[in-house]
C-alpha cells in the first residue's frame, strides 16, 4: 500500500517567523505515527497543514496520495481531526454534536444515527447523549471530540495532544480506545509532549524541536541507539571527573543542572563501579526513556523550558 503521508521539505512561516523548517517524513498505512516535542516545536503547525487548515509555505505535502494544495476537500472527506483546542459545538448536546457533524460529510441520516449510537457506546458517553456539551468533564469532552472525528469512518485520524490536561485515569481510557482503533486498521497521527504517551502508542515517531526534526524511528530503537538500557543519575556534577574511569561501562553522559546522567547497558555493574570510586549523595538507576533521547539531542528537558539548561557534553 502507498504511504499515507509524504512530506518533503515542508515549511511553515508566519511572517518572518519559521515555525516548521523544511521537514521530511513519511507515514505508513495502519501505523501510529507521533510528533514528540516541547511547546512551540511546530507540532500543531505541521498537523494543521496535514489537515488542510493552514496553507503550506513551501515544500510538498501529500496526504492519502493527494496534494493538500489542490485537493483539500477530497482529503478532508477521509480524515478525522481532533484539534488541540476544544472546538466541540457548545450550542448542541452530545448526540447532536455527532449528528450535525455527520451532515457536513453528507452522511445519510439513518446511517448517521447508527454511527452515533455506536460511537457514543464505544467512548462510554451513552448516558450523556442528551447532555449539553459545556456540562461535560474535560475527559468526556476529549472522548467526544475523538468520537466526532470518527463519524465519517476516516482512513486517517489526526490527534493534536489528545490527552493534555486529563487526569491519569482519563488518559488511559483514551489510550485504550486509540489502541482499539489502530487494531481496526485506522492510521493514527498524534502529537504529544508526553513521553509515556509516545512510547505507549506510537509505532514510529519524530522528535521535533524549533521547527526541525531531530531524529526519527521506533521509540525503543531510538532509546537503545542513543542511550542504551538504563540511566544512572548521580546527585552531583562533581562526579564529572569520574567519567574517564568509567570508560567501557557507559555509552555517554549528560550534565543536567546539578546532576550527572550516565547512559549504560549494564546499570548494576556501573553502579557498583561508581560506589567503589566515590561516595555520592544520590544515586538512582532507572530504565532509559525517550526523555533521555530528547535531552541528549536538544540539551533540554521536554517540560522544563528555560530551566535545566545543560552544557552539552559529548
Amino acid at each position, binding site marked *: 500500500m502507498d504511504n499515507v503521508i509524504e512530506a518533503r521539505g515542508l515549511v511553515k512561516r*508566519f511572517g518572518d517567523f519559521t515555525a516548521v523548517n523544511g521537514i521530511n517524513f513519511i507515514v505508513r498505512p495502519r501505523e501510529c505515527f507521533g510528533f514528540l516535542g516541547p511547546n512551540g516545536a511546530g507540532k500543531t503547525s505541521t498537523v494543521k497543514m496535514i*489537515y*488542510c*487548515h*493552514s*496553507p503550506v509555505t513551501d515544500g510538498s505535502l501529500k496526504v492519502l496520495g493527494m496534494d493538500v494544495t489542490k485537493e*483539500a*476537500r*477530497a482529503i*478532508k*472527506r477521509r*480524515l478525522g*481531526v481532533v*484539534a488541540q*483546542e*476544544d*472546538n*466541540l*459545538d*457548545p*450550542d*448542541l448536546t452530545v448526540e*447532536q454534536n455527532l449528528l*450535525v*457533524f455527520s*451532515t*457536513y*460529510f*453528507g452522511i445519510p441520516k439513518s446511517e448517521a444515527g447508527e454511527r452515533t449510537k455506536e460511537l457514543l457506546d464505544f467512548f462510554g458517553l451513552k448516558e450523556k447523549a442528551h447532555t449539553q456539551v459545556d456540562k461535560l468533564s474535560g475527559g468526556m469532552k476529549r472522548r467526544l471530540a475523538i468520537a466526532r472525528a470518527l463519524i*465519517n469512518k476516516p482512513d486517517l485520524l489526526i490527534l493534536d495532544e489528545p490527552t493534555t490536561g486529563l487526569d491519569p485515569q482519563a488518559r488511559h481510557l483514551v489510550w485504550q480506545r486509540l489502541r482499539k482503533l489502530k487494531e481496526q486498521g485506522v492510521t493514527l497521527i498524534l502529537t504529544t509532549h508526553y513521553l509515556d504517551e509516545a512510547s505507549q502508542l506510537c509505532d514510529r515517531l519524530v522528535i521535533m524541536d524549533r521547527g526541525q526534526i531531530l531524529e526519527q524511528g521506533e521509540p525503543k530503537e531510538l532509546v537503545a541507539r542513543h542511550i542504551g538500557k538504563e540511566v544512572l543519575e548521580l546527585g552531583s556534577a562533581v562526579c564529572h571527573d569520574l567519567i574517564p574511569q568509567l570508560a567501557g561501562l557507559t555509552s555517554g553522559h549528560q550534565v543536567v543542572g546539578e546532576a550527572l546522567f550516565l547512559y549504560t547497558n549494564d546499570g548494576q555493574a556501573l553502579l557498583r563501579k561508581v560506589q567503589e570510586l566515590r561516595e555520592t549523595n544520590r544515586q538512582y538507576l532507572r530504565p532509559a526513556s525517550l526523555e533521555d533521547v530528547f535531552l541528549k539531542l536538544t540539551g533540554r528537558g521536554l517540560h522544563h523550558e528555560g530551566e535545566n539548561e545543560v552544557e552539552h557534553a559529548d
Partner: protein
Amino acid sequence: MQIKDFFRRPDISWGMFRVFARNLKVYQKTWKASIMFNFLEPLLYLSAMGFGLGAYVSDIKGLSYLNYIAPGFVASSAMWAVSYESTYGSFLRMDYQKTYQAIIATPLSIEDVVLGDMLYGAFKSVLYGSVILLVIFTLGLVASPWALLLPVVLFFSGLLFAIMGLTWSGLAKTFDHFNYYFTLLLTPMFVYSGVFYPLEGMPDFVKEIIWFTPLVHVVNLARGLVLGQVGSYLLVDLAWIIGFIIIFINLPIALIRHRLAR
C-alpha cells in the same frame, strides 16, 4: 488580507446549506424568546412615536404619522436582527467557540461556512422583518398586497447587512469593536434613512450621502410595497442592493480566510 484574495474564485458547495441548517438547529432552542424580544423594541418605538409624536404631526404626504413610519420599521427591524447575528453571533462562533475551525476540518470550505452564516443572517432578516410586517398588518397599516413581496426584499437586504456585519467580524479583535459598528454605522443609518420622516427636507448633499448608504433603499422599497406606491423607481433601489451584494460578497470571505487559515 491581500488584494488577490478578494478576487479569488470562491470554492462553494452545497455544504453551505448544512452550515445554515446547523445554525437553524441551534436557533430552534431559543426562537420563541428571541422573536418576542426582537419585536418588542420596534413595537415600543412604533407606539411611542406613532401615537405620541403622531398626535402633533397631522399627516405626512397624506398619511397619518403611524401609517408613514410603520413600513420603515419593517426594514430597520430586519436590519437590526441580521446585524446582531452576523456580528456577535458569527464572531462568537468564529473566535470563541471555534465552530468555524471545526467545520473547515470537514469537507466544507471557508466559503461554505461564511456563506452559510450569511444565509442564516438573511433568514433572520426575513423572519424578524416579516413578524413586524404581520404586526402592522393586524394594526391595519398595510394598504396593498404588494407587501407580500417585501420578504423577498428582506432576503436581499439581509444578505447585504450580513456581508457588512461579517466584514466587521473579520476585522474585529474583540467583542467591544462591535460597539463602534453599531454606534458609528447602524444607528446613524437608522435615524437618517427616512424611517421617521421624509428626506425631501434635507440639504441636497446630505441626500446624496444618504443615497450611498444601504438602509434608505430598503426603507424606500418597504414603504412603496406596503403602501402600494409602486413604480419602476423602486427597481433602482433593488438594483442598488443587489449590486452591493455582488461587489462585496467576497470581502468577508477573504477577511475570514485571512483570519482562520493561518
